[in-house]
């Protein structure tokens, strides 16, 4: 069987590699928008980083602007619900609730008769400051909300080009912060004695640290035990909230030589949604000293 003759022109490999590079670039999104969030207790701040991978200058980034999921040809979906801190219909976003680069501005796009909206960061009309091909805009775009709205970190963003066509591209927001907080828990007292069935107040000491968020959200997730519980063995525990005081009964089954072990689980979730859990134990020993 004759094999087809292979053409080996020196240009062929060059062309192939160029075409492959071009195809690779075509497959790559023209930009990335990364986000991390910080919880300051009375407010949540979202920070955005824009990386221009494409050949066009970027003049604007709209957060919560999802053109990929059209209702129909005449509509597109906005995603944000929570308004920036201090936003007003007439005056817009106060300067204290937003940061932008020089010659850029931020404003909410609020459709008529709609609950959902988008947040646009972009150059002022006539200004020349754009994100050039290959540039990363980092540390300039942020918005402050009175409380968290997950769509600000896990929704979409649309980037707008100065002379590209299509004129814009919609991307999924990427998390810049993917590391969960570090969390440790200790309980006092860690041992309940004597096993007289009386309720004992227990206090949790929690240490939490995160690389971006100064105030991760703490929650008491669960309290379990190594043996069946009776009603009232666990009391005053507010699960799903930052409850660090509850009551456990100093009780254990008489035949259980290893005693009863209460396992208390807390979680810490940073404002970017990364969650860590940690457990600590309270023991009701079978015998004192064990």
């Amino acid at each position, binding site marked *: 069987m004759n094999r087809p003759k292979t053409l080996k022109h020196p240009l062929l490999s060059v062309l192939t590699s*160029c075409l492959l590079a071009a195809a690779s670039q075509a497959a790559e999104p023209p930009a990335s928008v990364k986000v991390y969030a910080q919880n300051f207790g009375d407010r949540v701040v979202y920070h955005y980083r824009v990386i221009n991978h494409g050949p066009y200058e970027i003049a604007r980034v709209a957060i919560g602007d999802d053109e990929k999921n059209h209702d129909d040809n005449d509509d597109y979906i906005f995603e944000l619900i929570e308004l920036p801190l201090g936003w007003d219909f007439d005056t817009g976003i106060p300067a204290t609730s937003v940061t932008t680069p020089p010659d850029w501005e931020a404003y909410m*796009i609020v459709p008529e008769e*709609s609950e959902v909206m988008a947040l646009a960061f972009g150059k002022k009309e006539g200004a020349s*400051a754009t994100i050039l091909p290959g540039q*990363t805009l980092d540390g300039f775009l942020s918005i402050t909300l009175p409380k968290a709205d997950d769509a600000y970190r896990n929704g979409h963003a649309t980037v707008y080009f*100065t002379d590209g066509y299509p004129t814009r591209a919609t991307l999924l927001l990427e998390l810049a912060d993917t590391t969960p907080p570090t969390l440790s828990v200790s309980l006092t007292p860690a041992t309940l004695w004597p096993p007289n069935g009386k309720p004992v107040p227990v206090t949790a000491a929690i240490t939490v640290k995160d690389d971006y968020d100064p105030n991760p959200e703490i929650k008491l997730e669960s309290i379990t035990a190594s043996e069946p519980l009776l009603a009232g063995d666990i009391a005053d525990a507010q699960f799903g909230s930052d409850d660090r005081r509850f009551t456990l009964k100093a009780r254990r089954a008489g035949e259980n030589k290893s005693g009863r072990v209460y396992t208390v689980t807390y979680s810490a979730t940073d404002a970017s949604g990364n969650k860590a859990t940690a457990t600590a134990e309270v023991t009701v020993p079978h015998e004192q000293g064990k």
Partner: protein
Amino acid sequence: MFHTQRMRSCPSSHPFLKNYVRAMACGGGPPTHGSGPDLACGKSLASLTATITVTRAACPIQPLPPITDPAALLFENNPRRSDTICLVPAMSTALSCLLTAATNAGGTPSVGSACRPAAYNRHLGNVWTKWVKELRDNNNPACAALRSEVKTHFNGHGLLRSQRPVPNSKHITGEAVDVTIRLPSAQIDTLVAGCQLRRPLPVKDRVHFIRR
């Protein structure tokens, strides 16, 4: 000003690729990798450039679709028009009540938008999208004329970049009005309740009233 970080360059602008195009346009052999950027072949390169120029001369953004609906054209020719004629009767009554009550309270009400024909409402949406999403940031010289035209249109309609007209508006069916009232929000809500109206979004769209 901006913190910048250089990324890899676009393959299509790679100097070697340019030289390859130039060399092949000259009818000669391929350049070797590392050739300088000064391969000369004016004639062929000029024709190549001309082709590229022609391709880029047209603005790729489509112009606004023309309005053909007569009712929409009536509104289009008077963009600041506030037409209350096509409000449903109950809404018309409620609006009269609101205007009287707001005037008596010193709120100097003004009706911004009442009913809009569907085709006109669609046109407003098209103008908003064309300007805010496609042309406002566009600096392609080939699009300059269209940009100017659409900007004039956008401003002429009194549209706001921060508020997008929606396709399924209650304005189309004559069941909503936009009224600016210079009174505290709580006072406005008291007034409108007495007129069987309410504001579905008193913060995000505070001038928009519908019936209770």
